[in-house]
Structure formats: C-alpha cells, structure tokens
C-alpha cells in the first residue's frame, strides 16, 4: 500500500527526470521546508527538496568546514556528484546557517538558470513578520514570473494552494490512523509518505494518498505495536534507522521533524490576498527551533502530539552539530520527562552505526518493560 511512496523516495531522480519529460515543466531544487511550494505549484514547477543519500563522501571538504552538520554536507555532495543534474533552478528559504552554506556553494559551483534566496524571517513571533513575509513573497513571485516568462494569476495561486493544502489534509488523515491502539501503518511507512511528498508532483501524491485512505481502515499489520514512540529533532530521513527501531517491538506513532509533521501540519487559510494567506501559513506553522523564540511555542505543540498519539517514550535525535536543536534539547527533554514521557538522545551523522544504535535503543525500550517484571 505504501510501496509507491517508497519507490518515489528511492528513485527520486528517475521520477523527476520522467516528470520533466511527461510535463515539459521546470524542476526547482530547494532547501528547507519554509519554501512556499504553493507558488511553485501555481507556476507549474516541480519543487524537489534536496536531501542527502546517507553515503560516505569526500567531495564537500573543500567547500564546507567540518564543524557544520552532516546533512548540509551530504546535500551538497549530491549536487557536486551531479545527481541533481536535471534541476533547472535552486532556492532556499532562510533557515539555519548550516544549510545556507549548501545553497551558497551550490550556486557558485553548480550553475543554474535560476537561483533564489528567500528572506524568510526568523522572528515569526512578532506581528511584523506577516507583512514582511508578504512582501518577500511578492518579490519572489515577481522573480518566478520573470523566470518562467509569464504571470502567475490569482487563479493559478488558488490552484497551488488547493493542491498543497489537499496534500496536507490527506497526510493528516493518514496520521490520524496512527492514533489507533494498533496503528495500521508503521513509522517507516509514514516517513516514506511524507518525504516522498517533498519530491513528487503533489497531484500524483494526492491520488496515491486517496488510494491509501480507501484501504487503510481495513488494514491490519501482522506485527505487535509494542512501545509507542515519538521521534523529535533535526531533519531525518534515515529509513534504515527507523526500520531497525520498529523491528524491536516498538512503533513510531508520531514525530516532530521537517520530514514529518512540521512539513504539513497546518494549512493555508484562504484570504482575498493570496500572498498574505500563504505568508500566514509559514509564519504560523510548527516552528523549526531556529525560529522558536522568545517563547518556546514548539514545546506545547509537541506535548499535545505526545498526548494525542498516546506516546510512551520519545527519541530525541539530532544531526551532529545542529545548533538550533542542540539549543532546544535540554529544555525539551526536561519538559517531556516532567510530563511522564521518558526520552532518549541519539546523534545522527551521514551514516548511522546501526549496530551500536540498536544496542542503545534496545536498552531504552527495555526500561518500558521493567514494571512488568516486578
């Protein structure tokens, strides 16, 4: 049922190349999920999130100092190795410093016909962020129009909003099933579903989601749910890790990742001024820690997720050197633990030592079984 998503994720480059042939459109590689995909869909552009390949590499050393996160280096490696040679443009929506370097090096060393740095505000808690981002979206829309050679109408934007919103609604409906005592999908399947949404045509993704939603009510997994876990932290599409984790009598039932709920949790609320509506969606979305100040608005959201999905424990993971998450983690773990949710911390690199992690995660999971022993 979820094979299609896995196939898209695994063969992302083949998919995009084929999409170009079929649709004759442009493909835009992007960094960070603060990129307003609604406008790209409105312009008939395929947005493809640049992700790493989880392979050891040696091509980024001259470009990015080794103290920056492995994810940003892995992403650049894909570009330097020519794996995204089909994209027509590249953009970033302002987020952490780490991924910014990937964008800068990409622009310099992998020439594109279009490149764009969107000044997404960090101060998402100030009311002035709304008009500011609205203005930035106007500038971005103008740049896009210049690139594609024709205007993007309100009707186009309405279509873009509708398609992307539908994608969010459908994925949220799928997530609802994860609340069940015996969820009919695994965390790995959910991960394939969300991550593939970041790299395929949203309308095709929506059709696949609708098929899944037809069958999901009657689906039974031939496995024990085991300990209900949530996973929190930096960018994570480490499917190998999730597969190992769910082989240990546990199930990931929810997450707070930009490859998970943070990507799709809220929708664009329609307004007459379309760009204002899109701006509000990105300002109000569950924040990346780099934008979560002065108040900690992430935390109540995460706690609510934990309650809604009946979470027993939380895996707090981070890409090595990911400062925004490192700065949140001590307080985040404290908050969860004070609310009766044990946490376990793991640091991810480009490749993950599955054997070591298995031993550590097993030890964490055993703590949930202890009360039964006595």
């Amino acid at each position, binding site marked *: 049922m979820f094979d299609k998503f896995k196939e898209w994720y695994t063969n992302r480059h083949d998919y995009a190349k084929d999409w170009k042939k079929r649709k004759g459109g442009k493909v835009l590689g992007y960094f960070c999920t603060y990129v307003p995909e609604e406008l790209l869909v409105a312009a008939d552009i395929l947005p493809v999130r640049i992700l790493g390949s989880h392979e050891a590499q040696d091509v980024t050393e001259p470009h990015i*100092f080794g*103290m920056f996160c492995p994810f940003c280096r892995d992403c650049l490696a894909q570009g330097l190795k020519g794996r995204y040679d089909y994209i027509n443009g590249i953009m970033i929506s302002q987020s952490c*410093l780490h991924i910014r370097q990937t964008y800068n090096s990409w622009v310099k060393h992998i020439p594109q016909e279009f490149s764009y740095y969107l000044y997404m505000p*960090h101060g998402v808690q100030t009311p002035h962020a709304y008009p500011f981002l609205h203005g930035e979206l106007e500038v971005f829309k103008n740049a896009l129009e210049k690139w594609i050679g024709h205007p993007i109408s309100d009707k186009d934007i309405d279509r873009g909003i509708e398609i992307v919103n539908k994608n969010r609604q459908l994925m949220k409906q799928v997530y609802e099933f994860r609340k069940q005592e015996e969820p009919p999908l695994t965390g790995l399947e959910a991960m394939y579903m969300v991550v593939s949404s970041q790299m395929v045509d949203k309308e095709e993704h929506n059709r696949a989601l609708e098929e899944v939603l037809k069958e999901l009510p009657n689906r039974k997994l031939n496995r024990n749910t085991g300990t209900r876990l949530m996973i929190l932290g930096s960018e994570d599409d480490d499917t190998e890790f999730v597969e190992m984790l769910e082989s240990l009598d546990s199930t990931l039932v929810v997450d707070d990742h930009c490859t998970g709920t943070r990507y799709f949790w809220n929708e664009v609320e329609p307004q007459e001024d379309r760009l204002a509506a899109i701006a509000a969606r990105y300002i109000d979305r569950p924040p990346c820690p780099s934008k979560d100040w002065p108040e900690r608005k992430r935390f109540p959201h995460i706690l609510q997720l934990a309650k809604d999905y009946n979470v027993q424990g939380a895996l707090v993971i981070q890409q090595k050197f990911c*400062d*925004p998450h490192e700065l949140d983690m*001590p307080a985040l773990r404290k908050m969860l633990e004070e609310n009766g949710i044990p946490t376990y911390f793991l640091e991810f690199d480009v490749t993950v030592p599955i054997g070591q992690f298995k031993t550590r995660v097993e030890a964490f999971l055993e703590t949930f079984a202890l009360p039964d022993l006595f």
Partner: protein
Amino acid sequence: MAEIKYQTKPLDIWNEGKALRQQYYENYAKAHEKGGIRWAGGAWAYSAVPAGLGDDVWSLTGEPYGASVAFDKKFAARCHEAIEAKGFARDLCAYLRNYLGSIVLDEYVFGGKFPKPDFQWTTHICCSHAKWYQIASELEGGTPLFCIDVSTGLYQDFDERRREYVVNQLLDGINWLEKITGRDYDDEKLIQAVYNECEATSLWAEICAMNKTIPAPLDEKTMYSLYVFGTIMKHRPEAVAFYRKLRDEVQVRVDNKIAAVGNEQRRVITDTQPPWGFLEVFRYLESYGVVSVGSLYTFSLIGAWEVKDDGTWGPKTTPQEQGIDITTRRQALEILADWTHARPEWQHFYSAQKKSDMMLRIVREWQVDGVLLHYNRGCEGLSLNIAENRLAFKEAGVPVLPFEGNMGDEREFDLERTKKAVDSFLELLGVK
C-alpha cells in the same frame, strides 16, 4: 629574527583603554547600588535603544564577556563543564557556553557573583543569538527577554519595506522597555545615542583604514583590545571620546612612521575571532617580521564602512557629517537600522561571495601578502562559508593558511600543531 627597520613604541592611550574597559564592567556589576539598570544581550544588539531609559543603564554584551572568560582558560574550562553538565552540547558557540556557564556557576569573570540583568535585549542574525538569551533567561528564573529579528538579507536589498520590519520591532521594543522598567522613555537620549554610535563605529573604521600605511601603526593583537569598546558601549559618549583620541594618536604614528612591529616585512590578515587563550601566535609571527594588520572581523564586526569616491574603503559618513538633524524617535530608529544593516560583517550571513570580495579588497588595499583563516569551531556564525573564502583566495593567487581551533574552548586548539603550520606558511612568505 628580522631586522628592525622602523621605530616603535606602545600606545600612549593603552592604559586609558584598559581602565575604561574595567570601569565599564564594574559599572554594570554595581549598577543596582546606584539605582541603575542592567541589561544583557549580544554585542550586535541595538544598544542605543535602551539608552533612552537613562544614563544609568549599563549592558553586559555576551560575546566580549565570553572572550574575557576564554582568556582565563581555567575559568573557561569550568564554565564549559558546568553548562555541558546541564545537557548542552560542547560544539555550541564557545562564547555562549562561557556565558551560560558563568550563570550556572554564579561567578562573574571580573570577580563576585554573576550579576543578573534586569532584562535581555538582543538581535538575532546567527542561529545562536536569540536562543542564547532564551536559555539565559530560563537559567536566571525568567528574566524578561526581547529579541529583534535582523535577518533581512543583504544590505543592497535593505529597502524601505525591510527597514520598516526592523524599525517596527524596535518601536515595539521601546514600549516593552517602558513596561518592564516602569521608566519613561527619553527620545533625546535615544537620538544622542544614535549620533554616538554612528560616530564611534565610523571612527573605528577610520582608525583601521590608517593601517593601510606601511609600516602598520597597529597590529591586530593590539586592535583586539581597542575594538572592544564598539562591542560593549558603541552608543556611549565614552566610546566616542576614546576613539577620537585613539584616531589622533594613530595619525601621529602614521605621520612619523611609528610601527606596531619594528621589523615589519610581511603583512597578513586573519579571519574570525582568534583563539583568545593563545594570542601568542601573533607574537610568534611578529618574531619573523610578519604583522597581522587586521581582518574583516576586526575592521567590521563593529566598524562602519563605505566605498569612497576613489573606489577604496573608508569610514562611513555619519549623519552629523551629512548635516542630518534627527528630531523624532522614528527617524532615529530608521537611521540606526540603516546604519546597522550596512555592517560589512553582516553580509556574509547571506553570501559567501560577498565575504570573499570584501576580504580580497582588504588584501589589495591594505597591501597584504597572505591570509590566515581561523576555522573556528567556537563560532559557526563567523566561520560560515569560510572554506569557500579559502577557495576564493586560492583562485586569486593569495597565499592562505587555514588552521583549526576554537575562540573560547582551549580543548579544541593545538598550539604546537598550529605553530608548525605557521612555520610552513612563514617559509611560503619567504621570511623563514
């Protein structure tokens, strides 16, 4: 040892600078004894704005404080251990760890207990800035916090709409300051602070520009002790007065060929904060006649620059030099925002190429023979894109030595290894 070619002498103003710095940290610590106000925040905070609360408002800026801690290696190590024991990663900003460690230990590096601020007031351009004071606030039991987002992009794109975003936050900030302190805000004091900040930061650029001269009247190790006033009190009259005197003294040194390093034969620049506990590296270079004449960091962390009519970099023309009469709160904030966002050291947050271009300009105009790039594990903000900057130097044919270290955590700096790398570089420069 290279031959002595130029006369040299210590700066006459040196002790005055030391006293001024010490007095400032004391004023902050003792502010409450005189009914004054203390605030803490980044060195890049809009410090002129809280000045509208009165003349008895003193700040503790985190980065210079973190550097002062770093200079005391034993205390820095204790700070790191204290904050790491709270669960914070050791690869976080070293200044942040020094600062937060001081809070946890409840020790002020200048003696006594850590003087808790009345409020936190900062800007956010690097991932750590607002988060730093968010955590400080929590560790202190909930100190009020106000953060201003300044991530509005390159200065070339800083149009009226983007400036309004910053100014509106500052206006909100003034209302917030009145609310949390219970004081009335004085726009005249704000306006004077804006004039002061523009003059002080322009004067620092003027002083740095004098180092284009051969021999250089200042060496970078000395400049570290001088630029600090721009990081702790850039809006205050004392900073203006000090930089005026310093500018006059450096002019005398230029006129009389008084060198910072008497045996100057090669000129280099560096990049990012140095490993503060190991500044002897600079003296090692000087023993071979190599003087570091500055860096983009030293020049423009605070210095305000502009391109002059002849195409070279010089001090930015102040509003007062332009005959601008600031009369309202909004006008003061608009001028301050525009002045602040023109800061060269902010441009690299958006573009590696911009930084490379600025550094190559310095190489040309300051007649530089080589570049030492500190791959600084302690500061991701200023180490941003540093590897691309190295490639730009290579492409331009400028000798470049990257060395890895940490501005504030001695566990990540290997002095002997660095000296060996420097030896090779000295050979490349033909002085060893």
